């Protein structure tokens, strides 16, 4: 029986359930503590940093002037439109966002370091801050960075032939202007690192709560001008990342620099306020799009102007191109668009740096395409499902207008399945009855594709200087028959170790408990790209399967020699090598021991059982349909999500329990995107939302049960037949929820265009509509 496909409880869990996980703060004991002095203002000249006299041992303050030999963080895209904006580790002569690190304080406890940091004053001659698209793109706007007059750091443009004539021929033209406000990935464990200095070797081991340990090592070594071999990065248990922990932040550079400079171990464990101020933000996009339809509801052309606020800097390594260029390339989503025009810009402002957050642009582009569909359906008098059915991709492989190849999927089938589960006819009856009783129910449909598991070709196409994407896995069976997979991916809550153990167990004839997966330690794992972009199951999974197959092949050859048969006759299962069709077996552990300790008997085989595999796929598309049912209370603008249906197609499911968990958690974040979470800067560029009392993360009270169903269209593009699904929940849910609100409010002729659709926004929209009608 196969381990793949089973709802196996996770191997990671016992330690986490008993308080024996090892998160980065759990390793801070005995280290000095670091705190950051951060810019109080959004923009201006840094004229002086006032440092108090220090008379306590083990207490230090450092500013940019102390960091000689330390470079800047520089994320590079090799595109002519890209403006490089180096990010200093500590601000030098100017500050560009409130919260930017300007000095570091080190003391013997975090409390003492914070006390010391409070006595350091950054004197800033303020400039008028540039905060919004309007500020940044105004004629003659002050440049946030002198390197980037005009404040556009990256711009993609495409205008397919035939776009204009398609609009001329349209039966209907639908236009939208949609926004997502600024949000935080808000991992429950904030950022943090412990830089452990080894006086014997001079090496630093940085334990850090990160998603990309190898990349962090490279980035740190480059900025600190040191060899990578003098640095070991370890991502221990990581308390969620969601994209916020994949960039090289100045805080980690400062931490490693200070540990080397003082030859001491130092910990920086960020608090929540600091995480809101200084860690990356996300979303903050404004998409204008118009689509031309024929009278049957078929899209003829799409023309879009997309703005992404990228904040004060360009995140390393993926750069500030990540949101605007993904929007540029993927706006058409699951729909067949013959003629496509797009302009997508990344705009810099005096706000915290933007970096990936689960979904990256796709929550907004799905919201955009689904609103175009809903509004066109209304305008043309079509059923919302019919208009989608006429436009969804149904011939595979499909090449998008920007050259993306969709492998086999089930766009229409997943939508129809979700509609059956949600029972739309029954809903419409309930909706009608509720309206008669003065209650407003609505339903929203969101169909989307999730590009996942893509290797270097996809990143190279963005012209990234650093091209991520492949994975290498070492698979070793030790003399006792136990297996170790050393992976370059770096899971942080996804359950990847369990899923990979299931994959390897099937290939090697052992149990998942026999497979230990090692990740996150640059001394112990092959160079890899960590965990992000719904990639790990596909890419690390593919490499794990291939490496396991190589070990299995060697086991079969050795077993065949000992059992006197052909290698192809050997089946590995239940801990045994069995000769098919004969009653002869050997324990796999005995073969493993023989290959280590009696290698002289196997003349043609190298000793041991360690193999490596490398995998760099072009990528695959999973797809899903989300349907949300909401009730809106017009008197207050309040929204309750009553029901949420997901039909997901992520190809072969390795562990459906884990897959469902990823979907449910993603949907919760998508609902938060749609209804609750918003980071707010005031007009001076001061962040107002710096606690979890201000930044409204939903609780169990707000998130409904998520009704999840699967289709399994096996991917022809991946070795495991699996597709990635880590981001899908977050990508699809906002469009479904806002679509449902707009359906509920149809009697008021109100359309919500901004996420999150907070009660005040909905109430305001209703009042505006009333004023207009009066």
């Amino acid at each position, binding site marked *: 029986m196969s381990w793949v496909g089973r709802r196996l*409880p*996770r191997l*990671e*869990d*016992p330690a*986490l*359930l*008993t*308080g*024996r*996980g090892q*998160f980065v*703060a*759990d390793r801070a*004991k005995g280290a000095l503590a670091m705190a950051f002095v951060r810019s109080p203002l959004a923009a201006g000249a840094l004229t002086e940093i006032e440092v108090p006299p220090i008379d306590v041992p083990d207490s230090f303050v450092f500013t940019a002037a102390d960091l000689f030999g330390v470079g800047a963080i520089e994320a590079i895209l090799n595109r002519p439109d890209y403006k490089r904006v180096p990010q200093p580790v500590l601000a030098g002569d100017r500050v560009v966002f409130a919260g930017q690190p300007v000095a570091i304080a080190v003391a013997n406890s975090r*409390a*003492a370091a914070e*006390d010391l940091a409070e006595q350091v004053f950054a004197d800033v001659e303020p400039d008028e801050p540039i905060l919004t698209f309007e500020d940044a793109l105004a004629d003659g706007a002050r440049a946030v960075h002198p390197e980037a007059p005009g404040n556009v750091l990256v711009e993609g443009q495409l205008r397919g032939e035939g776009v204009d004539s398609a609009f001329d021929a349209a039966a209907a033209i639908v236009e939208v202007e949609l926004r997502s406000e600024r949000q935080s990935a*808000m*991992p*429950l*464990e*904030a950022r943090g690192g412990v830089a452990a200095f080894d006086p014997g070797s001079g090496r630093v081991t940085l334990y850090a709560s990160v998603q990309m340990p190898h990349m962090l090592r490279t980035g740190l070594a480059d900025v600190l001008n040191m060899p990578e071999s003098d640095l070991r990065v370890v991502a221990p*248990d*990581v*308390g*969620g990342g*969601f994209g916020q922990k994949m960039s090289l932040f100045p805080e980690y550079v400062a931490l490693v620099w200070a540990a080397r400079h003082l030859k001491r171990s130092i910990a920086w464990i960020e*608090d*929540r306020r600091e995480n809101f101020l200084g860690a990356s933000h996300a979303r903050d996009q404004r998409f204008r799009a118009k689509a031309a339809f024929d009278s049957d509801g078929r899209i003829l052309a799409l023309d879009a102007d997309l703005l992404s606020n990228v904040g004060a800097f360009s995140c390393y390594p993926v750069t500030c191109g990540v949101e605007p260029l993904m929007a540029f390339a993927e706006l058409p989503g699951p729909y067949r668009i013959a003629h496509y025009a797009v302009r997508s810009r990344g705009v810099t402002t005096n706000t915290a740096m933007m970096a990936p957050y689960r979904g990256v642009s796709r929550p907004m582009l799905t919201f955009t395409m689904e609103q175009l569909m809903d509004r066109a359906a209304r305008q043309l008098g079509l059923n919302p499902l019919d208009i989608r059915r006429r436009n969804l991709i149904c011939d595979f492989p499909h090449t998008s207008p920007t050259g993306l190849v969709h492998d086999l999927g089930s766009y229409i089938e997943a939508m129809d399945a979700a509609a059956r589960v949600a029972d739309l006819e029954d809903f419409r009856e309930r909706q009608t009855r509720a309206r008669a009783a003065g209650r407003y129910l609505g339903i929203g449909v969101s169909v989307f594709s999730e590009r996942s598991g893509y290797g270097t070709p996809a990143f190279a196409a963005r012209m990234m200087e650093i091209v991520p994407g492949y994975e290498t896995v070492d698979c070793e069976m030790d003399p006792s028959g136990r297996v170790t997979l050393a992976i370059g991916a770096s899971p*942080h*809550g*996804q*359950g990847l170790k369990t899923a990979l153990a299931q994959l390897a167990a099937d290939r090697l004839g052992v149990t998942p408990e026999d497979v230990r997966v090692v990740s996150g330690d640059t001394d112990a794992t092959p160079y890899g790209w960590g965990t992000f972009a719904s990639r790990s199951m596909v890419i690390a999974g593919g490499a794990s399967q291939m490496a396991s197959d190589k070990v299995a092949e060697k086991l079969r050859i050795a077993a065949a020699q000992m059992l006197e048969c052909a290698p192809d006759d050997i089946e590995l299962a239940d801990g045994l090598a069995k000769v098919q069709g004969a009653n002869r077996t050997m324990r796999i552990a005995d073969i493993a021991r023989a290959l280590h300790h009696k290698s002289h008997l196997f003349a043609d085989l190298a000793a041991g059982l360690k193999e490596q595999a490398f995998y760099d796929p072009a990528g695959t598309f999973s797809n899903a349909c989300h349907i949300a049912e909401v009730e809106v209370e017009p008197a207050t603008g309040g929204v309750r999500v009553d029901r949420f249906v997901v039909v997901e197609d992520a190809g072969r499911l390795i562990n459906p*329990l*884990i897959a*469902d*968990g990823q979907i*449910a*958690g*993603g*949907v*919760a*974040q998508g609902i938060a995107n749609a209804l609750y979470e918003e980071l707010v800067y005031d007009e001076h560029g001061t962040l107002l939302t710096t*606690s*979890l*009392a201000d930044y409204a*993360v939903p*609780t*169990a*009270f707000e*998130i409904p*049960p*998520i009704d999840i169903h699967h289709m399994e269209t096996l991917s022809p593009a991946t070795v495991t037949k699996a597709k990635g699904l880590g981001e899908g*929940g977050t990508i699809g849910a906002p469009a479904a929820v806002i679509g449902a609100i707009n359906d509920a409010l149809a009697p008021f002729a109100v359309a919500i265009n901004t996420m999150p659709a907070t009660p005040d926004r909905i109430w305001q929209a209703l009042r505006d509509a009333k004023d207009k009608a009066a």
Partner: protein
Amino acid sequence: MSDTRDLTLRVNGTVHHVNVEPRHSLADTLRESCGLTGTHLGCEHGVCGACTVLIDGRATRSCLVFAVQVEGSEIETVEGLAEPDGTLHPLQQAFWEHHGLQCGFCTPGFLMLALGALRENPDLDDEELRDLIASNLCRCTGYQNILTAVRAAADIMRAKARPAPNP
């Protein structure tokens, strides 16, 4: 702020003699002075609940309590939940079976929150459980599996607490 106090804390039935500043929170004291790092800090302002422990049986945000306030109290943390032989508590077992955790950072807080409430009232209905679980934040799971796990554990705990009636 370098004045310190000697305190005697009872945590999971074990006595800890610690020396802390009066401003030290119970959470920091458990983590730094008692070596019990299973209690996690997600916000340090009383919203997320990751640091929830039991003080004299009541679920409490340990980031909002000073260590000097709880001398003489019985403190329970996640480290005391499983049996000494490693057998998981029904809550831990149910979280495991129902995938009630992903990154695991919030998990100790949810376990202690549920433990305190179910000891007080093992008969919480689904609505009351939802209300209870809404006390804490989880960023990974979307909560449904946590609710399912707590429901399952509650049923087991109730069955254990009430031995079968004599025939």
